[in-house]
């Protein structure tokens, strides 16, 4: 129970090691994950500079970003 509480209150923090950009709108992410071509103007992209700490990287991207050394985990959430 303690761990569940921690997950809810402290999301995992990642440090961007290069510049990143990604959408955060769940509906847009859903459309992209389904393979839909979403017009750029609808993506409402978040820009992240190298060195920034973020918690909102799309879940489906975290694996390859970690694997390629483009982000690193700052805490375990």
């Amino acid at each position, binding site marked *: 129970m303690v761990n569940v509480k921690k997950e809810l209150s402290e999301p995992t923090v990642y440090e961007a090691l290069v*510049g*990143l*950009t990604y959408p955060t709108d769940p509906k847009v992410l859903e459309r*992209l*994950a389904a393979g839909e071509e979403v017009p750029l103007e609808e993506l409402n992209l978040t820009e992240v500079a*190298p060195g920034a700490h973020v918690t909102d990287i799309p879940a489906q991207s975290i694996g*390859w970003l970690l694997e*390629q050394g*483009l982000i690193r985990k700052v805490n375990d959430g």
Partner: protein
Amino acid sequence: MAKYTGANVGFFLIDGYELTGYTIDITHNVEATTEESHTLGDAWAENTSVALNKFQFDQNGFFDDDVGASNEALVAMAGTQRQVALSIEGNTLGKKYIAAVGAVESKYSRTAARGALHKGNATHMGSGAVEEGLIHTPLGSLAGSSGDGTAIDNGVLTSNGGVAHMHVSQLTLGGYTNIALKVRHSVDNITYADLATFTAVTAAPAAQRVVVNGTVNRYTRSNWAYGGAGSGQSVTAFIGFKRNP
């Protein structure tokens, strides 16, 4: 496969100077050096490659001494290495362009003749490779204070790096300090990471080439953003990327 005409020439850029509107014809030669290798006893000539390639750009066009026109782009540059980008298939996202980073201007001729417009013709000899990439930002005006290009899907990732090219032919900062141009890549077409970052540009004309190593993910796209704050800004730029196979 398709045929093309002069109307399909999308741009002809030298160090950021856009010379399409001054140019009558361009010939781009890539030549493999060979040596005659036949010997006594051979009935037919033989030629063997010596594994040395070279390129040359020959351009013929009009002499024009306006600011930013053909004469300013070509005069007094003999012996200088220039960055060249040429689109002969159309100034369209995903179309091929030809780039040469080490094009040494070997000759510039100004011709005046009776009953004819003055001409300004140049030859550029190769000093290095020719690179053929895909247009990520067609040469044109980029609106807003930042933006992203449309993604190009290579189908698979590649592992041998690549080369990014950019030319800025016009820039008004309007109070902004610079404009930064990039090529980004992605595995999933959702999150993009910086792949090639050009040095921020503060004046036009300008051209740069950036080499990247290692993995280039399946999707690539361009990005631009002004630095600082301002208004009334405008830029005309081209961004391309050549993925190494």
